[in-house]
């Protein structure tokens, strides 16, 4: 889709096209509760290159959604971003005021949400919701409607001209996810964040939506930041992966390397917990213990109470993320350079 470029001067700004598209540096986000400040994201750093598919993986509550919402500057109160930089084309999104960030959303970075069943307004027709997004680029209504119907086709909705006139409750879950995806890509953002885009859908639809996202990435030359707990999804579409545990990135690597040789004990255990066909090994392995509560973090490495290989140093000193000679990143005392 070729929309005229109506970026405001504010948004165009100074852009650094040589570096990564998105660069998150030492991001720390916390929630202010009656029991004090709870850190949901601690010192997270990662880069997403242009056109790349980057996955953030982790259990529920590990801070992956909060990381994504921090990038969108949509962390719900009482959450606050305490520290860090979020550079999009070299511009720090955390430094923008309310109006400027609204101009970045949708146009530069957009986000699709977990539950497509309630992510559309019940009172507007599907096509009209996409049209709402398109008119933000100051395109006249009639033209916007035509483009909206076209977008419905782009996200592979069958009978899209007819479906554009349907209300959300008349559409299936998969179709609603496509409509929301259409809304979000209609302004051709450079980065699309997808927070558990397939969790609420059944397996056959999941595969279709993932294919659609990859296809759209190719066509719109956008980068994808996928948030998921599903290592299967990661294997299928990601180029690079960051594994999160208790608000920290514990390991970061290319998808093939990570699957072939997971370095962090947590990643290794996650891999072993994956069901595999034909091995006949009986029950699935689980990781003993549970995720530490964010209000009551163990000292040292947050994973050491569950780690089968923990050493004395692990319970006293928190490992910092290191870049290995191979270019991979890992935060563990046990990994040798």
């Amino acid at each position, binding site marked *: 889709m070729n929309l005229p470029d109506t970026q405001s001067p504010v948004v165009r700004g100074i852009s650094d096209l040589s570096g990564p598209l998105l660069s998150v540096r030492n991001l720390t986000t916390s929630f202010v509760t009656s029991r004090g400040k709870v850190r949901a994201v601690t010192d997270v750093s990662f880069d997403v290159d242009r056109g790349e598919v980057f996955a953030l993986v982790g259990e529920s509550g590990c801070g992956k959604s909060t990381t994504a919402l921090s990038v*969108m500057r949509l962390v719900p109160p009482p959450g606050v971003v305490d520290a860090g930089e979020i550079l999009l084309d070299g511009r720090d999104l955390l430094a923008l005021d309310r109006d400027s960030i609204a101009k970045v959303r*949708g146009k530069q970075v957009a986000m699709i*949400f977990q539950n497509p069943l309630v992510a559309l307004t019940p009172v507007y027709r599907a096509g009209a919701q996409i049209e*709402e997004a398109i008119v933000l680029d100051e395109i006249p209504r009639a033209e916007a409607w035509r483009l909206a119907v076209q977008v419905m086709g782009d996200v592979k909705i069958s009978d899209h001209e007819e479906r554009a006139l349907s209300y959300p409750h008349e559409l299936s879950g998969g179709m609603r996810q496509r409509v929301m995806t259409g809304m979000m890509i209609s302004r051709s953002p450079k980065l699309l964040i997808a927070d558990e885009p397939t969790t609420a859908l059944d397996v056959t639809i999941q595969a279709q939506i993932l294919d659609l996202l990859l296809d759209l990435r190719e066509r719109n030359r956008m980068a994808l930041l996928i948030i998921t707990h599903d290592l299967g999804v990661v294997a299928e579409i990601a180029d690079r992966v960051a594994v999160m545990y208790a608000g920290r990135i514990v390991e970061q690597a290319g998808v093939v390397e990570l699957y072939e040789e997971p370095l962090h004990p947590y990643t290794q255990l996650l891999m072993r917990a994956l069901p595999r066909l034909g091995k006949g090994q009986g029950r699935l392995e689980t990781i003993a213990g549970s995720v530490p509560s964010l209000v009551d973090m163990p000292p040292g490495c947050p994973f050491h109470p569950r780690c089968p290989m923990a050493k004395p140093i692990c319970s006293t000193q928190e490992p910092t993320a290191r870049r290995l000679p191979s270019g991979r990143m890992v935060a563990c005392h046990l990994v040798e350079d």
Partner: protein
Amino acid sequence: MKRQFSPRLLLRNGQLMAGLIIFMTVLVVAIGADYLAPKAFDEMDIPNKLQPPGESGVMGTDQYGRDLLSRVIYGSRIALRVGLIVVVIESVLGVTLGLVAGYYGGWADRLISFLTDMTWALPPIVLALAIVTALGPSLNNVVIAIALVSWAGYARLIRSKTQSLKNMPFVEAARALGESDTAIMFRYILPNTFSLIIVLATLSLPTAILSTTSLSFLGLGSQPPAPDWGVILNEGISLIFNAPWISIFPGLAIVFTALGFNLLGEGLRDILDPRMKV
């Protein structure tokens, strides 16, 4: 899943049907007053004054020999027009304040909620009396006064509805899309409250008509010879024992209209949102 709006549901709801019929009757009478009224509302006929219902007119005549039926018929225009204007002003005011309070929260919410509670706590007619006395008696001032004392119900309802809607994922999605706060309030949240507003507006229309007629009855609203139902009632009150029909018929007209709108409002509520309590 929302219930589908269907004509069948409409027919099955007796309250709604009765309300609708009364509403249509009043509407037709108001629009067709020029054709339905046998005489002009201010045409005096002194020799025929104070005639009881019968030969000289279905509802009789008043102390100036004016045909009461014609006056009551023309009165419906005033009642409907004034009621609608009041409802439009109070709902725009209340809905806007409720949206702002519910959406932004914080000090805006505290200020608006304080105003709402203040307005809610004072007896509306007394407050309206004070405002009209300050502005001077006229129908326009009565409209302003009634609207100023009755927006609080809208503000409260829309505030709480906005508070729950603003956390819906579709609002978050709108934000991720780059919509401004104003656009989110008016294009995403407001349309989702329309069914509430329609019901509340229908239910507050009879109150608006009753309040304005009361003030006209007290001599603060429409001035004679306007055929305002309140004015006619007032004119009849001193003759209540000699010519009770002068007061009875406008009184019945008020009751009939108010009843109709109440039935309509409650019927609509049952159809649009059965769990709502207004």
